[in-house]
């Protein structure tokens, strides 16, 4: 069952600084369907527009970010809405209770001069009127469920280790048991052991609450470990989307092939190559397929036309002329 659906979503940053106009095509025609009760991974490198995509999906659209086209339709239970058309008040009610967000930089999203408890209080009180005792129960129960010590409530953010902070942020984002959770690089910049703990936590939450997690990270190994489905984003577009096993076993897009083929493995010292060159800046995309300057299989058509995302196999979509030609 689809819980979130977008069609040709376009969100650009349109800025004008000292008279020079600039358009950054951060999200450029993205269509996704995300199902209920799944972990959906979005993979991509820095600057591919994945953070902007999340912002748009969350309805955090403030100038200079502008949505030019497309809707973001949710159907959570019997609640159906386009998040881009909600008023600030409605947005406020939707967030945390229905849709929540785990940000990337846990250090900077918690107010450094307030105790964790106060942050919980603020976030809960903003959505629910509850008694002091109820609050205590709610938070302690939640922390227990997530395997976090209660003492963290009395700590200041800086007193926690990076991993603990990230877990607290996750707890904060999930305290009201939202149906849809966006997690933006939740484990980047964490040590491997901690990373494992954090990912484990996300998995647990999903298992228990049966909700949808949209996980954004550039780390394919994480995706492999947790996601049900993965979308690969490149230069503002989804270029490939499939079940996790499928994508790892059978990547179709040349970029995906590079991405997966270059992953080192312990116990395997064989030579690995990265894709040549660098991703293009979103403000200045090459014509045609954005990947064509780096693509070893580039054709004339790739330089001129933009391939669209089509289903190549059962549930495996890809945007590449190499593949779509076969279809």
């Amino acid at each position, binding site marked *: 069952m689809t819980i979130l659906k977008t069609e040709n979503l376009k969100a650009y940053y349109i*800025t004008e*600084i*000292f*008279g*020079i106009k*600039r358009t950054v095509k951060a999200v450029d025609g993205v269509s996704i369907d995300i199902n209920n009760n799944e972990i959906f991974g979005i993979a991509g490198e820095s600057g591919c527009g994945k953070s902007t995509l999340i912002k748009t999906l969350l309805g955090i659209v403030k100038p200079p970010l502008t949505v030019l086209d497309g809707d973001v339709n949710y159907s959570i239970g019997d609640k159906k809405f386009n998040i881009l058309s909600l008023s600030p008040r409605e947005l406020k009610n939707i967030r945390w209770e229905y849709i929540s967000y785990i940000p990337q930089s846990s250090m900077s999203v918690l107010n450094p001069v307030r105790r964790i408890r106060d942050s919980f209080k603020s976030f809960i009180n903003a959505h629910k009127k509850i008694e002091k005792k109820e609050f205590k129960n709610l938070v302690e129960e939640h922390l227990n469920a997530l395997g976090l010590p209660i003492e963290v409530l009395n700590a200041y953010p800086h007193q926690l280790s990076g991993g603990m902070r990230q877990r607290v942020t996750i707890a904060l984002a999930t305290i009201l048991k939202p149906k849809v959770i966006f997690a933006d690089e939740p484990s980047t910049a964490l040590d491997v052991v901690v990373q494992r703990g954090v990912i484990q936590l996300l998995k647990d939450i999903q298992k228990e609450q049966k909700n949808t997690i949209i996980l954004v990270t550039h780390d394919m190994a994480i995706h492999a470990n947790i996601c049900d489905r993965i979308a690969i984003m490149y230069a503002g577009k989804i270029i490939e989307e499939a079940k996790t096993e499928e994508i790892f076993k059978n990547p179709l897009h040349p970029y995906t092939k590079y991405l997966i083929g270059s992953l080192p493995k312990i116990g395997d010292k064989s030579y690995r190559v990265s894709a040549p060159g660098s991703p293009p800046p979103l403000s*200045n995309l090459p014509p045609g397929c954005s990947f064509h300057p780096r693509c070893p299989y580039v054709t004339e058509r790739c330089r001129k036309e933009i391939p669209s995302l089509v289903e190549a196999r059962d549930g495996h979509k890809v945007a590449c002329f190499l593949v779509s030609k076969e279809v």
Partner: protein
Amino acid sequence: MFSAIKDLLKYDKRFTFGFSVMTLMIFLAILSFFSPYDPKVWNVVPRDMPPSLKHLLGTTSMGQDVFWLATYAIRNSLLLSVIAVIISRVIAILLGLITGYKGGFLDRFLMTINDSFVILPLLPILILIASVIKGALNINNLGILLGIFGWAWDARVLRSQILSLREREFTYTAKLSGMKTLSIIIKEYLPFIIPLIMATAMNNMLWVIGMEVTLAILGLSSLEIPTLGTMIHWSVNSQSLLLGIWWWILTPVFICILLFISLYMLSVSISEFLDPRTRLQRIEVMKG
């Protein structure tokens, strides 16, 4: 530099305002060189005349033309503040950079001196010195005096900024590129602290102008030299408020306000312009 000003003028209203007011002030200051009246001579025009075509801003009870007096006042006050600002900036920047970068005993020693300056009750000391050497308190000397006393806090601010810059990795890169301390400070750090220097300089300038006014109101600066402060002093002393000679008192007060607002606007807008964050954006944009 020139193109930066052009861009700021075109796209930043605050800058446009600040810049045009400042230009006007400087123009007026220059105009003073062409004044038909000697500001030290009294009784050159009829007394207490309200503004008219002949006397744009009226005349004083001493028989001076307010407009032309104001041009001198602007010139001297600006000159004074520039002198004081330059002196105090030199001290503050040197001290802030050295202590911040070098650290150790030198830092502790200089900061103790610095703190001693911070805690000195400035007004009594200025009053003391001013009342004694007032005869010699021409614009230059007053500027130097205020410059000598106006750096302590800003040196502290700069130091803390340098302290945080010192921790950034590019410091090591610069060091390992074989750069010497001085060139690291100048080439690497200065671009970051220039906005701060600008902001503190503007603030300092305002402080200097304000301090001069205070000293003048107390009758402690050289009252024969027309400055904003002495203009206020004379007008207050001649009861221009009670006698309804509003043009005399309002002129310097209004100039003070204008100067402040324009300096503030300039400071905000220039800091923003030079701020690394926005600066990067801009560089990006310029390149397309």
